[in-house]
């Protein structure tokens, strides 16, 4: 048992909490994963330096969301609000973690949000955050923090959205036989729940690709009972991939960084699909 524990890819999970619906979903997913993998949970709350700076500017005024009126921003007031948000985040983490008896820590950092998130828990194996946070526009795509984390973070990144569970449901993995894809496969198998179905989307043009993929999967699975489905989809265009993923309607999409996919395809794919994404590094 202990040896398998040690061999785990994920021992510690960092999660960004800002009390937005996306971050709540992130925390929930992270806690779920941590509980199954017996991993530690690290909650990170970042006090946005940008916000504090705005408040410090002489002309800073806030346009209120539901009345469109303006009010003066005040540093003291903002600090108080941030402290309160941090407290709420801590309580949320505590509640979630204690319900599952998880090891957990909570960190409050100040600075640029993406940077602080990436540096806040260097010991963590995975960073879980919302697809979009409390961003100004109600956009559908990725938030700026998520985008930065995807492109710059050194560890595995999982982007969550509310309404979809990460690992209890089905998983979908892009596979092309590369090392990155194999890493992604191992990680996916590790986080997959006991009842999850693993959909493998083989993107190699080669006709034997599926067979090879099956072999590799069987080796990694090594006797563990997991339902797998294989699909051969030799496309490299993000739009086709997105429509196929939507058709399968699986949950978490697992992608290995360094696969034989053009970076823009990958970005477009993550941008467009409305599912949580795990980028394995």
């Amino acid at each position: 048992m202990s040896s398998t524990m040690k061999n785990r890819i994920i021992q510690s999970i960092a999660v960004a909490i800002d009390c937005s619906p996306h971050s709540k979903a992130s925390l929930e997913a992270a806690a779920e994963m941590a509980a199954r993998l017996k991993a530690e949970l690290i909650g990170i709350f970042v006090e946005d330096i940008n916000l504090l700076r705005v408040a410090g500017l002489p002309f800073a005024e806030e346009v209120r969301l539901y009345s469109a009126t303006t009010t003066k921003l005040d540093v003291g007031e903002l600090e108080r609000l941030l402290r309160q948000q941090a407290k709420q985040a801590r309580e949320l983490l505590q509640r979630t973690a204690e319900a599952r008896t998880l090891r957990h820590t909570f960190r409050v950092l100040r600075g640029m949000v993406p940077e602080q998130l990436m540096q806040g828990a260097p010991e963590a194996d995975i960073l879980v955050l919302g697809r979009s946070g409390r961003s100004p526009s109600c956009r559908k795509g990725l938030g700026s923090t998520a985008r930065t984390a995807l492109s710059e973070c050194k560890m595995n990144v999982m982007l969550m959205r509310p309404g979809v569970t990460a690992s209890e449901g089905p998983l979908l993995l892009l596979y092309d036989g590369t090392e990155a894809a194999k890493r992604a496969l191992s990680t996916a198998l590790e986080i997959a729940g006991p009842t999850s179905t693993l959909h493998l989307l083989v993107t190699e043009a080669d006709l034997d690709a599926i067979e090879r993929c099956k072999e590799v999967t069987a080796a990694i699975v090594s006797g563990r009972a997991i339902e797998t489905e294989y699909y051969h989809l030799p496309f490299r265009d993000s739009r086709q991939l997105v429509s196929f993923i939507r058709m399968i309607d699986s949950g978490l999409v697992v992608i290995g960084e360094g696969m034989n996919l053009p970076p823009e395809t990958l970005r477009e794919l993550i941008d467009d699909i409305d599912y949580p994404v795990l980028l394995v590094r």
Partner: protein
Amino acid sequence: MPVPEKLLPAQLFNRCDPGSFEFGTTAELDGATEIAGQQRALEAIRLGMGIRHDGFNLFALGPSGTGKESTVRQFLNAIAPGRARPDDWCYVYNFSKPRNPKALRLPPGMACRLSDDMDHLVETLFSVMPAAFSSEEYQAREKDIGESLLEKQSSAIETLETDAREHSISLIRTPGGFAFAPVIEEKVIAPDDYMAMKKEERDKIEKEIDRLRNSLQSIMAQFPKWQRETAEKIKELNREVSAFTLKPLMEEIRTRYKDIEEVSRYIDEVEKDMIENFGQFLEKDAPEDGPIMMPPPFSPAGRKRSVVRYRVNVMIDNGKLDGAPVILEDKPATQNLVGDIEHAAQMGTLITDFTLIKPGALHRANGGYLILDARRLLLEPFAWEALKKALRTRQIRIESLAQLYSLVSTISLEPEPIPLDLKVVLLGERRLYYMLSQYDPDFNELFKIAADFENDMERNPETHLAYAHLVGSIAVRDKLLPFDRGAVARIVEHGSRMAGDATRLSSNLQAVRDLVHEAEYHAAQNGRTQVSAEDVEAMREAQRYRASRIQERMRDAMMRGMILIDTASEQVGQINGLSVYSLGEQSFGSPSRITARVRLGKGEVIDIEREVEMGGPIHSKGVMILSGFLGSRYAAEQPLSLSATLVFEQSYGGVEGDSASSTELYALLSAISGIPIRQCLAVTGSVNQHGQVQAIGGVNEKIEGFFDLCSERGLDGRHGVLIPASNVRNLMLRQDIVKAVESGLFSIWPVTHIDEGIEILTGVPAGEADASGAWPVGTVNAKVFERLKAMAEKLKAFAEKKNGEPEK
């Protein structure tokens, strides 16, 4: 004046000959009861029910037991099937004014169908609506509308963000909204760095931010409008989907009721409301009060409050009726008459809705006939006024009494009134009718026809047979032994006795019914298979015995001399009067001693009863009449110079009635003349100022009372009773008296004038005045005249002496 002949036995009792009946027992009769002897009332009922016009309602008046109710019912049940079946009525929700439930009129039998149809519709919608709204097509369209709003909003902001970025300004989300700030490489410029910038640069930035902020504000000002538009779009979609789902179901119902305009209009309103409130059909069985709250065991709303309003509250279903309804309301309380709005307690408050409107007797009888007992109606608070109001306004308006008199204060309803068209028949005693007619101005307007039921009917072969039919029908209906004709004849005779008239029969059907039951009991006790005359006699005897306690105690007191009644000797100024005691249903006669004393005086006859206020006004009137007679007959030419006192000896209660006035006159004549009266005789009868003896009531009881006492003391042929000749037709005496008369032990004299009576009582002729006005010597009248003359002279002498004139 010749003394009248004693009555013959045949005159004392009008026998009913069993031989006059053609049947052996009542079992041979067909069991149908005919209404006999009530032609006048029947005529009135026929008229009242025949005139279809306002106010021609009927009041059937007569003593209780005369068969008012059964007569009216029998009549109405006979004519009702020939009349048109009235329409059904129901209450439905009023979509425009929920406080005023709408009354719908439907052809007979259709109300229940509409109710079923609506229930079925609602039930169907609970499965059809969710299916329509969970269809993929609907979901996709709804999502589409929602997302287009989001896109619109985000693209507006994104455009602004791009604009800002071009000027190195970033849109930042603050805890309460948005703010703009200058950025360098994604980082907001720190305040110190900013202040270190040149003023022109700062002004430029601030100006730019001002512009951006204004744009943002104008974008955000549009958000509510967009949201409203989106909501409207979704609503429109919902409306479209629900209308489409509803249409075929509604069409089905609509075609069924297309001929009834009001119902069609109602169905249109239902459809409109269902489309607007489609949501209520989506969550089936969802407890609206939440899971913790106990659903009340009785919820007027049933499963779901909101869909209750599509129910149909059927007030009147005449589907199974044959002709017009005939309703007898036994408890005419206001809410039983005009209906009621009930309330249900829910979570400690009283609530109601149109399904809790309850119909009253007026609803049920609408289009037909309603029979009510007047006394019960008047005893119920507000019921009389409510009935009158309904009849006057010709509509039934349901009002909650509690609400009306502010006893409760909850949300209540004012249901639309229902037009009223019916005939009301009130049953009651005459007294009630006359009182209402006198004191209630509305009464004569609303109850124009009075059906006056007779207390009794003429006695003839037809009514004899009607009695037989009545007895037979009671026997059949109540599963009694059949009555043989002898028993029926006895009952007919008793009917005459109840009527107090040998030539009439009582119409008190209730009394006859009781009689029949009792007689049958005796027959059954004796193990007979049919009721015979002996059983009726035994029943009568038992009745008499049961009622005779006081009578016997009084007679006992007379026998022992506690109450002084002489039935043997002859006495001056003393006579046996006869009085009747009424105790509840029973009455009996008993003799009482009346005495008179005279002395010199100024012509007054003092009625001691009146002086001590124990005599009623009629009694006093009788005494005054007799003193009028006395004065005019014997003292026309001279002052009546006596003072007389009259008294009922040993009377401790009151005395009322004038039936003793002739008796008192005899006592007075005896006292004045000094001629003794035979105490073996008793007298009854009233007298007028001419000395004629007039009829009185209770003659049978009076004779029997005296006979019982005499017979107990021993009859010797001298005993007898003087009755007014006009009362002979009332005689229905007991058989033992008839037998005593037959054997000459007891006599009854019919008397028409005082002169006849005094001769029988004293054995001295009364005497008739000759042409000069003088009375034959030795007669009673002569003696009275002489005595009075002597008294007048004596008084005159006294008066002169008193005035100081010298004695001659």
